[in-house]
């Protein structure tokens, strides 16, 4: 039976948290030994939190430590109605922050199409693509200030699947900074994977950095499973890793933080060295 674990990894700052997460992802891919008949399926987020992690992954690719040739990616979400080449679309984000810097093949990337003629069908097709790819090995995500995972806003079903969602006010306000601070320019709907979709992944890694996420992290791991804080669903996932910086732990009990920090010497073994496996096929 595979291990059933919840790990809270606390690093000093954003850079270190990004690096730890990137090394963890890199090592997972390498240990999997992806090949032409054996793709590593990776779920990916957008937003400011994962940017540091993407930068580090690009560095590891440029240093020759890892290839994305046999990696398939599935992004969590995309705005509805925003042109695909709009600088704030999640397609643009993924191209500029990640895809253009690495050797991933376009046909192995999957991002929901917020301009599809039939949005429901697009969502259903996305679920099918995940199934056809054999499910997601590792789903990387972030957390909103309101505790949401992807666009599963407070009140979302914890067994939800990929669907169209209306965005919560908190989310629209948080995103306004990418639209010249103009609330009227922010899209109000998005396509998103469901909580259930992410729960289906073999392993989940949630990146949480910054003091403004501290309360959401507290709600996610120190309170009960609750659909108002959808990230709390991962308390029931067999293999979850929360990677945080100090600021994100500000609302947790000192006891919780000390407990997990005490295990860092064990957890760091997961990222300390490059696994010695052939990197390129």
């Amino acid at each position, binding site marked *: 039976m595979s291990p059933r674990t919840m790990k809270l990894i606390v690093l000093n700052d954003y850079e270190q948290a990004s690096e730890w997460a990137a090394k963890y992802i890199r090592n997972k891919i390498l240990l999997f030994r992806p090949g032409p008949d054996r793709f590593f399926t990776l779920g990916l987020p957008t937003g400011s939190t994962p940017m540091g992690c993407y930068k580090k992954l690009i560095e590891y690719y440029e240093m020759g430590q890892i290839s994305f040739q046999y990696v398939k990616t599935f992004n969590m979400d995309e705005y509805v109605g925003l042109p695909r*080449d709009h600088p704030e679309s999640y*397609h643009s984000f993924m*191209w*500029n922050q990640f*895809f*253009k810097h690495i050797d991933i*093949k*376009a*046909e192995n990337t999957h991002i929901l199409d917020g301009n599809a003629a039939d949005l429901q069908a697009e969502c259903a097709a996305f679920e099918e693509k995940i199934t056809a790819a054999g499910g997601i090995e590792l789903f990387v995500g972030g957390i909103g200030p309101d505790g949401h995972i992807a666009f599963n806003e407070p009140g979302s079903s914890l067994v939800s699947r990929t669907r169209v969602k209306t965005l919560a006010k908190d989310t629209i306000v948080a995103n306004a900074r990418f639209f010249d601070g103009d609330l009227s320019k922010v899209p109000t709907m998005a396509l998103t994977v469901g909580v259930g979709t992410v729960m289906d992944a073999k392993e989940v890694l949630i990146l949480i950095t910054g003091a403004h996420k501290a309360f959401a992290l507290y709600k996610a791991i120190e309170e009960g499973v609750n659909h108002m804080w959808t990230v709390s669903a991962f308390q029931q996932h067999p293999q979850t890793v929360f990677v945080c910086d100090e600021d994100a732990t500000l609302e947790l009990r000192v006891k919780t933080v000390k407990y997990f920090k005490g295990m860092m010497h064990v957890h760091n073994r997961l990222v300390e060295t490059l696994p010695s496996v052939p990197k390129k096929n």
Partner: protein
Amino acid sequence: MPSNKSVSDAPITQFVNCRILRGSRLQREDLWVRSGSILDPEKLFFDEQGYADDRVDCEGSIMAPGFIDVQINGGYGVDFSEASEDVSAGVSLVSKKILQHGVTSFCPTLVTSPAAVYHKVKVHDGGAHGAGVLGLHLEGPFISAEKKGAHPERFLRTFQAGGIDDLMAAYGSLDNVAMVTLAPELAGSQSVVRELCRRGVTVSLGHSVANLSQAEEAVDQGASFITHLFNAMLPFHHRDPGIVGLLTSDRVPSGRTVFYGMIADGIHTNPAALRIAHRAHPEGLVLVTDAIMAMGLPPGRRTLGQQVIEIQGLHAYVAGTKTLSGSIATMDTCVRHFKHATGCSVEEALEAASLHPAQLLRLHHKGNLDYGSDADLVLLDDDLNLKATFISGEEVWKKAP
């Protein structure tokens, strides 16, 4: 990586490791080219699921749009204004040689000459054979006798009753003509300016004693360029700035820019004057060489148009006088000198030789590295020395190691 394109089979080249001039900034971005045009790689990725067939490593160089020279009279022993049997061979020779100066498009310039000389040079694309010809620049003969510079007086003309008809009689045809320099104080010239602009020819003011009013009137009629600012025109005067006053005139119609050519060879314009012009109106500055046939040749006596000139070092005079005959500095020399003399940024210096001349000639697909534009490029080091020149994405010149 193997290519995979559903839209086109043409090979895709990806220039990596370069700092490209885009949005008036040098950015660390790759540049993608397909079928001679700059490609949007994001569209290629998401729409076509395509990739590059070849990669060119630019080794950290600066990548700028190819330079555009709108005033060049010849070079390497070729004088475009000299009537000869094989005009196109001369143009071809120069067009090939100037690739090493970073020039990818140019306007062969004809100075005031007798009617017989206005032969036909065809507009054509550049390539491995040489820089592209954008059209002729006809400098004269409708210019001022007092400001003829090196132009021979006996061939100067004025507009008689016919205006544009006089012009057509002088030139024969306006096909393949990109620009005409004339003096707007000449009687009948304003209607000619209007008619030329209507026909898509860029009108430039120069070799003139026009006052500011006359110059502004010409701009109203559509004139958009000043030929070698300061040279062959009335000097700036604080009560009548003359043509120079166009740089800060409030009578330029909104939405229009008056461009001005500057020969930044360190000789034709005192650096202080260059700085005054640049600071007054930086977006209009267009670097030109005004190069004469002696460019590229060793010192001595040569023929230019219908006259004899003398080369001494970087200076070229009308033989027996101290009147400047034209410059022999190359375009890349001008770019470097312009940057040095004005203290402007690298981006500004490069735009003065590429973006601004393209804007002047209303060539939206040249002079910039935007998606869809022609892949006419130069690679430079940090001191703006040329390393390689490309036309339509193909390398047409490379600096010897």
